[in-house]
């Protein structure tokens, strides 16, 4: 029988919570492996600019912050693998993880899979995906030099990414379903500097994306005050309408999720399954802030150390 690969902790996802946890665990010689199916650094890495992460007086590029966290974790010996965890199984002392690279076992698991951007679920959205409909301004904004775009959403991401897109585009219609922004006051103030390029449309739903000859030409919405249809001619649509947790891989596990699919933990960041912890944006009650995620990662690492002590250390 082949020898099983066993680690003290396997961390699922490599965002700020994961990398922060790994800095703590590996620094204390706790054998740590991270699996990441997407981008190391998570959503933080695809965010243009992070202005509120403590310690950076002038702010920091999301990609730079992510790389710095990665290097710090690797300096202490974190093993970051570019692969996907497909499912986890509680087998008592050991947890079994099915991954795209085969099976691995862990004494503890830390779930830090974060969240991803939600889709609108309207006609035209999937049809024009990556051909006019986008969810990553830092990736795709450059294709819209001197063109018109629509940005959908009223939270921090929508406002911040709209401002980022002003580097390229000629005009942005920002469609906000509510009568006000959910974005922070400081971002709303910052947005006022961009009135030359950004027109905000409150109380406006986004109903359909229409195109011709394979290209997006307009977005159709509804003005909720008049209940009339409104059209926005555009070359592209960027969607930032909130986040959904990445917990699909837990559907066959015993880990309890809340009503929107986020992982429920106790005050020690442990789930209902002994030895399985969660931190960061995937955790029920998370504040969706990078600073909170790194703090939770550190806390989870200390809780994992405590859990491991009577078991084998």
């Amino acid at each position, binding site marked *: 029988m082949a020898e099983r690969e066993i680690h003290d902790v396997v961390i699922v996802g490599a965002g700020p919570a994961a990398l922060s946890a790994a800095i703590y665990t590996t620094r204390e010689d706790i054998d740590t492996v991270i699996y990441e199916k997407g981008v190391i650094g998570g959503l933080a890495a695809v965010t243009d600019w992070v202005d509120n992460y403590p310690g950076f007086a002038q702010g920091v590029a999301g990609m730079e912050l992510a790389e710095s966290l990665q290097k710090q974790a690797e300096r202490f010996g974190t093993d970051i693998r570019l692969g996907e965890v497909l499912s986890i199984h509680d087998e008592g002392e050991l947890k079994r993880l099915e991954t795209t690279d085969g099976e691995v076992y862990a004494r503890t698991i830390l779930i830090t899979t974060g969240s991803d951007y939600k889709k609108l679920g309207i006609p035209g959205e999937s049809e024009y995906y*990556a*051909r006019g409909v*986008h969810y990553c301004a830092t990736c795709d904004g450059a294709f819209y030099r001197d063109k018109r775009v629509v940005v959908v959403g009223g939270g921090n991401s929508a406002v911040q990414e709209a401002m980022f897109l002003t580097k390229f585009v000629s005009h942005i219609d920002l469609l906000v379903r509510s009568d006000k922004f959910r974005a922070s006051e400081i971002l709303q103030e910052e947005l006022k500097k961009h009135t030359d390029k950004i027109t905000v449309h409150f109380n406006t739903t986004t109903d359909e994306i229409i195109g011709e000859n394979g290209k997006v030409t307009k977005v159709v919405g509804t003005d909720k005050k008049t209940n009339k249809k409104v059209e926005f001619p555009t070359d592209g649509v960027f969607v930032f309408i909130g986040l959904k947790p990445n917990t699909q891989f837990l559907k066959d596990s015993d880990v309890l999720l809340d009503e929107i699919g986020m992982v429920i933990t106790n005050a020690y960041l442990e789930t209902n399954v002994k030895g399985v912890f969660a931190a960061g944006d995937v955790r029920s009650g998370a504040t969706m802030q990078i600073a909170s995620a790194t703090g939770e990662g550190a806390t989870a690492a200390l809780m994992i150390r405590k859990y491991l002590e009577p078991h084998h250390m």
Partner: protein
Amino acid sequence: MPKNITIFTTNTCAYCVMVKKWLNAKGFSYEEVNLDQDPSRQSEALELSGALTVPVTVVTKADDSRDVIVGYNLSQLAPAVS
């Protein structure tokens, strides 16, 4: 073994960084076309991929056939370079 690998990227694209990291980790060399530095080649990326996005990775094989991979997609990238 591919004859040639070209990646279309931009300065701010984190998924582009991941494609490069993965290729580096596997020991593949590649040519990078940065569309921020060379916007005139955007139409080339669009023509190859049909998509207004980066990364676009073009893997040219020994028989000159080509695989075009849009995004950071290891399930397509790994077999393309094998």
